[in-house]
């Protein structure tokens, strides 16, 4: 390029920039410009500048070519070469890396007085500051009457920017008028509010502005010694400030005879040491005096007696930085900016759930909505705005409804918040406001000096109450206690920290009370943050609400007995479920999003087997025995679970079972290769050990009625009679020899009765019963077993692992096939006439309706046909269940919450209510009914059913090295060899070894510990 170009490159070196690597970008520019010097006509001026504002886009680089500014965002050292080549040398901006309209909007909507030079000038150069008019105001002031200077500041309406909002001019005047020759000026640079970085931006971006302000102030007040108390956590700001002070001294702006007048003034830098309370004026002074930073209780203004007992004027960084522009441009100019009682501009730090995190400067009185949406860019990730906390940890939270308020001292105060130092923390729908209140109370308590009773003891109690609420121990009286304590702490605290600490609690109680109530009454955190009230997905999805993460973690730690105890809080059949449960928890397991879900079911089975073998049983602790007795009808999982949980409460339980052996479908439905009967016996033994009596071969309807039970003195009854009546195919000759219903076949098999044999067996149906039957028949020397199912594998309800097992064992599955008629000879089945189906539109269940394909009929040879298309409840005789209503599809009608039937004192659960479902759902029903029955007997009108599952244990995080975590994989559960499977009913699943189980348990991501 032949033309001479004036090129200036400004790279953001505010903290956001430095953290994003601006030093490396500067180095890259230096290196590349050095290398390419021959190709560039003029050496570009390269500057580090202060904070450019929109920290979210760092590293930001402003390239000025002949006065036109191009801004690059997210600049990395790797991008520099292309920028130099294409743009600086080639004249073509690299469009894809330039900032967008949103960035321009961010700045366009601001009004920059103090930030005007941040990002324009090099903060490490006093000349850069002087070039833009720096120190001209101080020079001007040296020729003014000090009183006039104070009048100007008063007239401008400048209010302290540290949070107090006290009129600066009046403060200066009081200090000037105070008795004594020695006076001090202090700059409070102990910016302690979390999320606030305004003072930092000024100190790192334009420190001379603060120095100039203090020079003007010291002149007006008559002080020769100033201090900047700056927090040690701002090393970059400290460095730049010290640099600037030295430069100012060199130029004669500080020291003796400043500005060539007979005036002295110098500034010392004092570092803080990590105490938020030292941002409080009197504590800050105590700290400068070399004592522990503790606020002073006395009612005397520091302008009268402050540092070392002398009149002291303390102002915030931003306040001081406002002084030079006011002197330069006049009080009237300044008073023309802002709102009626809040003049000038204010810096805000936008933090939290907001797109454009960074520093902004706007005139006082701008609507909050404009700040958050127009400048801030709104909430990221499509989330909804919830609240914005203004003013630091003692600020209030402002909800959506108040977003149109103008941001100034009065309006924020009316809304229950404060201006504070200017921090704005934005919160979205995923923020729990109770957790926010707890966090900030903890912060204030942590930072409290501890001198006065209300703050020290009061905040401690508030923290405890808020912790209780977020951990599910909230009580009704807590809310009033929080309000009362807030009032007391505000009234009687010694200093501003205490007085404002309750603000977050007060404002969240004012605007988000329903969240508190959800935590207290429902034990539920609507935002999903409080981990005790937000179960892990596995825990949440388990129908019985078993605390999965806790027992998995206990297994990892080798504490198997405790693991079983946790399981039994919600499920008294851990071993059975460890074998037969479809494990919806595994379906929700977050580990499954990474690689494979945790093998939760197998872990449960392992732990139960371990404990059963080691201890011979589980030891539930029964509460004091009561007098009342409860009758349970049906000894399946629903009935026995109801019995178990009632027995724990001390009730005397008698279980009436129609069949010869207890267990319900566990006994007569599930075949032994899936659930060995001796295992079932061992588990049922636990119930008997508790004193539960089981009377077999005693059926409701045939042998007794509900009236009989009440006559016998039972206080309540639970009906868990299951769904054992098979649904017929509706075909002719279904009663022929060689045709047996699936559940009847399994019942005979499981009760040790002879079962019909066949060589070509056809099983009709696609559920677990059909597959159980098929796999059982295979073991009974059938030559060929075929399952006929009218839809495809995708719609087949049986568990995938069962289907897999069946196929391994040689079972054939004929999809899209249905029987049309049963073919017999001499009264015995010889075959089926079948027809192929195709899938049409979905039916009521959402599954696609099978439609017969005309002309596709064929004959299937078969000497044993086993329909297994479903079951319903066998309804006992009307007389025996008087008062208990039945619903249309044949189950008991119950209250959805309490499982109470239409007859008082009679409850029902399991398949008898839901129709055929899973074991774990039956267990959940039995447990829920037990709670309801217990409440009924005790006369408790309103039993509390927790709306979400509760944690049953607190288990610490387990240390697993990253290496190990990467190696662990979901194990394949060892299975019995095929040869054995074809001729015995031995258990197919062999279970995990202890090592395999503990390793598998370590893969758990512990979603219960998140947040």
């Amino acid at each position, binding site marked *: 390029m032949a033309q001479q170009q004036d090129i200036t490159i400004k790279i953001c070196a505010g903290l956001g920039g430095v953290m994003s690597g601006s030093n490396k970008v500067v180095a890259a520019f230096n290196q590349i410009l050095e290398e390419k010097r021959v190709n560039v006509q003029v050496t570009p001026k390269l500057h580090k500048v202060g904070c450019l504002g929109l920290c979210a886009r760092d590293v930001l680089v402003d390239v000025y070519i002949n006065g036109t500014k191009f801004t690059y965002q997210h600049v990395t050292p790797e991008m520099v070469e292309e920028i130099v080549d294409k743009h600086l040398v080639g004249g073509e901006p690299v469009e894809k890396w330039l900032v967008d309209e949103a960035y321009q909007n961010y700045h366009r909507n601001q009004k920059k007085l103090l930030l005007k030079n941040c990002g324009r000038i090099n903060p490490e150069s006093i000349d850069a500051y002087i070039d833009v008019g720096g120190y001209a105001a101080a020079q001007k002031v040296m020729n003014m009457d000090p009183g006039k200077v104070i009048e100007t500041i008063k007239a401008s309406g400048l209010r302290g920017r540290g949070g107090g909002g006290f009129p600066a001019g009046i403060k200066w005047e009081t200090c000037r008028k105070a008795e004594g020759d020695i006076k001090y000026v202090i700059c409070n640079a102990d910016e302690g509010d979390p999320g606030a970085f305004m003072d930092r931006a000024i100190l790192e971006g334009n420190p001379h502005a603060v120095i100039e302000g203090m020079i003007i102030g010291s002149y007006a007040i008559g002080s020769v010694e100033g201090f900047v108390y700056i927090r040690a956590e701002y090393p970059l700001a400290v460095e730049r400030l010290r640099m600037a002070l030295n430069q100012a001294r060199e130029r004669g702006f500080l020291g003796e005879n400043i500005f060539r007048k007979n005036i002295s003034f110098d500034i010392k830098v004092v570092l803080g040491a990590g105490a938020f309370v030292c941002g409080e004026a009197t504590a800050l002074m105590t700290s400068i005096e070399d004592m522990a930073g503790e606020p002073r209780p006395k009612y005397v203004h520091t302008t009268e007696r402050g540092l070392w007992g002398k009149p002291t004027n303390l102002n915030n960084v931003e306040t001081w930085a406002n002084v030079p522009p006011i002197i330069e441009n006049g009080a009237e100019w300044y008073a023309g900016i802002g709102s009626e009682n809040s003049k000038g501009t204010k810096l805000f730090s936008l933090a939290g759930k907001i797109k454009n995190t960074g520093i902004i400067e706007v005139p006082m009185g701008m609507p909050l909505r404009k700040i958050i949406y127009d400048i801030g860019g709104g909430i990221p990730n499509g989330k909804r705005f919830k609240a914005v906390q203004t003013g630091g940890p003692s600020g209030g939270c402002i909800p959506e409804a108040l977003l149109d308020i103008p941001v100034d001292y009065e309006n924020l105060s009316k809304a229950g918040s404060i201006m504070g130092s200017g921090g704005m923390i934005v919160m979205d729908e995923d923020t729990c406001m109770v957790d926010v209140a707890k966090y900030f109370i903890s912060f204030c308590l942590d930072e409290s000096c*501890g001198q006065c009773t209300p703050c020290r003891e*009061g905040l*401690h*109690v508030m923290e405890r109450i808020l912790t209780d609420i977020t951990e599910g121990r909230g009580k009704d009286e807590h809310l009033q206690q929080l309000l009362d304590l807030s009032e007391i702490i505000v*009234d*009687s*605290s*010694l200093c501003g920290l205490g007085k404002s600490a309750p603000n977050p609690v007060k404002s969240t109680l004012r605007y988000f009370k329903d969240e508190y109530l959800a935590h207290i009454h429902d034990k539920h955190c609507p935002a999903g943050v409080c981990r005790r009230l937000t179960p892990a997905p596995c825990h949440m999805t388990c129908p019985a609400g078993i605390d999965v993460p806790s027992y998995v973690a206990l297994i990892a730690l080798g504490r198997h007995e405790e693991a079983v105890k946790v399981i039994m809080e919600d499920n008294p059949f851990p071993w059975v479920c460890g074998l037969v449960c479809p494990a919806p928890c595994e379906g929700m397991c977050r580990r499954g999003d990474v690689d494979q879900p945790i093998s939760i079911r197998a872990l449960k089975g392992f732990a139960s087997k371990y404990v059963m073998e080691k201890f011979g049983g589980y030891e539930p602790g029964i509460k004091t025995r009561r007098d009342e007795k409860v009758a349970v009808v049906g000894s399946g999982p629903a009935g026995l679970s109801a019995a178990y949980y009632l027995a724990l409460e001390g009730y005397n339980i008698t279980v009436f079972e129609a069949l010869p052996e207890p267990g319900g479908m566990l006994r007569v439905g599930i075949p032994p290769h899936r659930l060995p009967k001796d295992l079932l016996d061992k588990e049922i033994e636990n119930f008997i050990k508790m004193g539960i009596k089981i009377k077999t071969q005693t059926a409701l309807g045939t042998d007794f009625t509900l009236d009989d039970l009440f006559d016998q003195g039972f206080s309540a009854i639970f009906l868990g009679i299951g769904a054992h009546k098979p649904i017929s195919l509706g075909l002719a000759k279904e009663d022929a020899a060689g045709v047996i219903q699936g559940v009847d076949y399994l019942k005979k098999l499981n009760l040790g009765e002879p079962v019909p044999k066949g060589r070509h067996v056809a099983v009709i149906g696609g559920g677990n019963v059909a597959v159980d039957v098929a796999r059982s028949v295979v073991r009974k020397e059938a030559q060929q077993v075929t399952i006929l199912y009218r839809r495809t594998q995708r719609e087949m309800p049986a568990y995938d692992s069962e289907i897999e097992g069946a196929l391994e064992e040689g079972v054939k599955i004929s999809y899209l096939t249905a029987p049309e008629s049963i073919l017999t000879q001499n009264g015995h089945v010889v075959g089926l006439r079948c027809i192929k189906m195709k899938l049409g539109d979905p039916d009521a269940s959402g599954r696609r309706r099978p439609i017969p394909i005309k002309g596709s009929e064929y004959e299937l040879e078969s000497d044993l046909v086993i329909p297994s298309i479903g079951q319903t409840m066998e309804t006992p005789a009307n007389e025996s269940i008087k008062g208990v209503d039945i619903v249309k599809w044949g189950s008991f009608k119950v209250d959805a919450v309490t499982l109470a039937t239409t007859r008082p004192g009679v409850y029902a659960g399991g398949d008898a209510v839901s129709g055929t479902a899973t074991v774990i759902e039956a267990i959940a029903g039995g447990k829920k009914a037990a709670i309801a029955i217990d409440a009924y007997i005790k006369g408790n009108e309103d039993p509390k059913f927790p709306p979400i599952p509760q944690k049953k244990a607190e288990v610490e995080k387990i240390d697993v090295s990253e290496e190990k975590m990467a190696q662990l994989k979901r194990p394949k559960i060892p299975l019995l060899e095929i040869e054995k499977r074809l001729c015995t009913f031995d258990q197919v699943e062999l279970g995990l070894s202890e090592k395999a189980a503990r390793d598998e348990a370590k893969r758990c991501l512990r979603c219960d510990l998140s947040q």
Partner: protein
Amino acid sequence: MMVQMTLNNKEIEASKGSSILETARKHGVDIPTLCYHEALEPYGVCRLCIVEVGGALRSGIRISCIQNVMDGLIVNTESERVLRNRQFLFELLLARSPDSKALIDLAAKHGVYESRFYEGDTDDNCVRCGLCVRACRDKIGAFALCFAHRGYDRMVTTDFESLSEYCIGCGTCAQICPTGAIRMKDDGEERIIYTKNGVVGKFKLETCDLCGIPYAPRKYLDFVKRNSDASMAVSVARDLCPTCARRTGAINIVGSMTM
């Protein structure tokens, strides 16, 4: 000089320069305190002495031990707001110190009999009034005690929380402590001064030159001697227990009288 003010609806005269607390007590009005002691500069941290003011001062709450009286001041020591604050302050103190008889008695005197905030897991009698620290530092000048840590963990302790080399074993702290959190025990020839957190000072008691009973630590006697010699310009010579010292003194006086 006197000022005219109103105390609980009664017009009274008060000495300029005195605090509301001192004035109230002089007029028989009982305001509870923990961190106040006539011998020490008021600290104003326990907040129990709060009152409600108006008139010459903008209406609001004031801490009476550090607020001086003035002409036209209106003070109410039993307003609803004051009583409510006091109630909660006592309950908060009792939550941490449920076993301090002195605190229980003081609270009961002001109608507070139990604390709704007590969780059953604290029995720390120290109310952080600072009287021990202030007495030791400002009156005795031994500098053996200090406050350490912040917030709820703020506690009275010694340098590095270990046995103090500055403690002279005078026991002023134990005597001035309003709740019995810091104690002194003499057992035979040993004196220890201790809190729940640890031992402040441990001393061998010197025996009386005359009667032989153990009565004071050497460090304490040296301290008294140093300060007495300076102020009395004579040397305090013998190690005498208080009883023998009195007798000896009396004998000397009688002796000098009969001369």
